[in-house]
């Protein structure tokens, strides 16, 4: 399981993460929410070693991630970044890249078999020979997820995987992620903006503001006051089929009026 303790990170003198503590168990999806610039993406980058924290510890089971070689981390953690670049690599080759931490130069049938299995799981077989710059946003997201899966990790990190997707693609991707992590007993951390999707799919939720955790826990304990404190916006919480749905209070026609009057 992932255990983050007392994590601090700063860009120069500007603190981004301050004494962050949380843990994620196998089979669990943790959603990290918070306003833009709260430090969500930086948190993921610290966990997988792209950024080096100033202090604190990150453990995966008994292993100290901060002392591991980048290749070793890549065999433990699958990372789906927010920005996925399109290339002239085929879908098959783009997913095959996920085997990079295990490869020298030669690709064995074993590696290709795993790529094919991941493509099949995500319904991408028919696109295997298409270039990734010919894909839609949802398909590209699936390619990045398939790549993370063939790394055969124990922990998955997703940086806003649904921000650019339509509703159907959002539901499809989040449903798939939930199924994969419970089937394979993986731990997962996902940053996101959509509160209601987080409440629907995540086992637990962390609210981050100005680099510090403001709330960590299950969906049941979340109150309008916590959300208002994090986002500075009054909300109500309704329950539909026992699932909480967060709605901003007020008349949409009057929202943002002060700013638009000045334009």
């Amino acid at each position, binding site marked *: 399981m992932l255990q983050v303790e007392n994590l601090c990170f700063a860009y120069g003198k500007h603190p981004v993460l301050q004494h962050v503590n949380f843990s994620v168990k196998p089979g669990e999806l943790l959603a990290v929410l918070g306003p833009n610039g709260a430090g969500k993406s930086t948190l993921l980058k610290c966990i997988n070693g792209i950024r080096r924290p100033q202090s604190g510890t990150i453990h995966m089971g008994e292993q100290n991630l901060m002392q591991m070689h980048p290749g070793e981390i890549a065999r433990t953690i699958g990372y789906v970044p927010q920005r996925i*670049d399109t290339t002239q*690599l085929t879908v098959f080759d783009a997913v095959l890249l996920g085997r990079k931490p295990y490869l020298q130069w030669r690709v064995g049938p074993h590696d290709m078999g795993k790529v094919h299995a991941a493509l099949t799981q995500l319904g991408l077989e028919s696109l295997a020979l298409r270039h990734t710059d010919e894909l839609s946003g949802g398909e590209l997201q699936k390619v990045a997820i398939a790549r993370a899966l063939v790394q055969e990790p124990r922990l998955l990190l997703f940086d806003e995987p649904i921000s650019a997707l339509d509703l159907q693609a959002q539901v499809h991707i989040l449903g798939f992620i939930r199924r994969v992590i419970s089937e394979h007993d993986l731990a997962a951390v996902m940053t996101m903006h959509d509160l209601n999707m987080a409440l629907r799919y995540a086992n637990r939720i962390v609210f981050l503001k100005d680099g510090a955790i403001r709330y960590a826990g299950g969906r049941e304990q979340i109150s309008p006051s916590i959300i208002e404190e994090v986002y500075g916006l009054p909300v109500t919480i309704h329950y539909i089929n026992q699932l909480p749905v967060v709605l901003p209070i007020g008349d949409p026609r009057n929202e943002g009026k002060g700013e638009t009057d000045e334009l």
Partner: protein
Amino acid sequence: MHLSHTEIPEEYRLYIRRKVVFIIGAALLLVAMLVLSLALGAADLSLLAVCRSLLGLGEDDRVEMIVWNIRLPQALAALVAGAGLAGAGTAMQSVLRNPLGSPFTLGISHAAAFGAALSIVLFPGSRPGTTSVSALVCSMVVAVLIIVITRYRGATPETMVLAGVALGTLFTAGTMVLQFFADDAELASMVFWTFGDTARVDGGELAIMSGTVAAGSLFFLANSWNYNAIEAGDETAMGLGVRTGYVRVCGMLTASLLTAVLISFIGIIGFVGLVVPHMARRIVGADHRFLLPASILMGGLLLLASDTAARLLLAPHILPVSVLTSFLGAPVFFWLIIRRSRR
């Protein structure tokens, strides 16, 4: 997690096989072009005589002399230089994630021209080797400066390209100053040096060029997976355990050293390092396991063919091969730009 094994799709096997066939075909074509280039020239030799001579079965001293002493060193110089320039161009374009990465865009050629001009002014009448060494030193200065600047500002592609453009401009201005104060003979030497010419290479220089190109190519090939990962974006690459800054600096340094050695011995040869990687990419795709060998072979083939054509077109006059590669390269590049903007 463990994904269960399934069989590899047949269409992917075919797709890979097509690339391998293309690379083998290009290698065979290169050998054929080499033999053809040895046969063609002012003194016409038959293909059979050339083949016999290459296999050590030659009996005619005149043929032996022409093949081994005159045409083979020049042909090999063209082949090795083309292969090296294309390989280095491919690596530069990949690590910089910029289709304009080449010895020209990064100021390496300009620095070599400045180095050559400087040695012509400072050491008049010295051996050609001095000019080569001076060109090599100046182009390496550029490579090291680019690396030093990126150490301070972070090894991003933008920093590297901008630093290269600035240094290129600086060295061009330096060359112009030298040319302005040079006498007629020096000016002629300076201009002549910038015409890339494969005939000026001697045996020792050819050995240095071949060794450098072989070592550089092996280094690039060993990094194929790293370049593929960088192709998919820096964050993805880092998530796959690739130290992108380190790979970028090492790739740039190797590519710069390789082109600096080639340019200092044969002068400036345009467009091979820029156009061939694009052509290879169109044919075999962006997977560097195939792109690099294809690019290296196509570079060798293109420069060898251009060099042969340059000897024949206006015979008995010999055109500078760099003129021909630029005449061929520019239209190809325009075509690539138009195709890209249409998409």
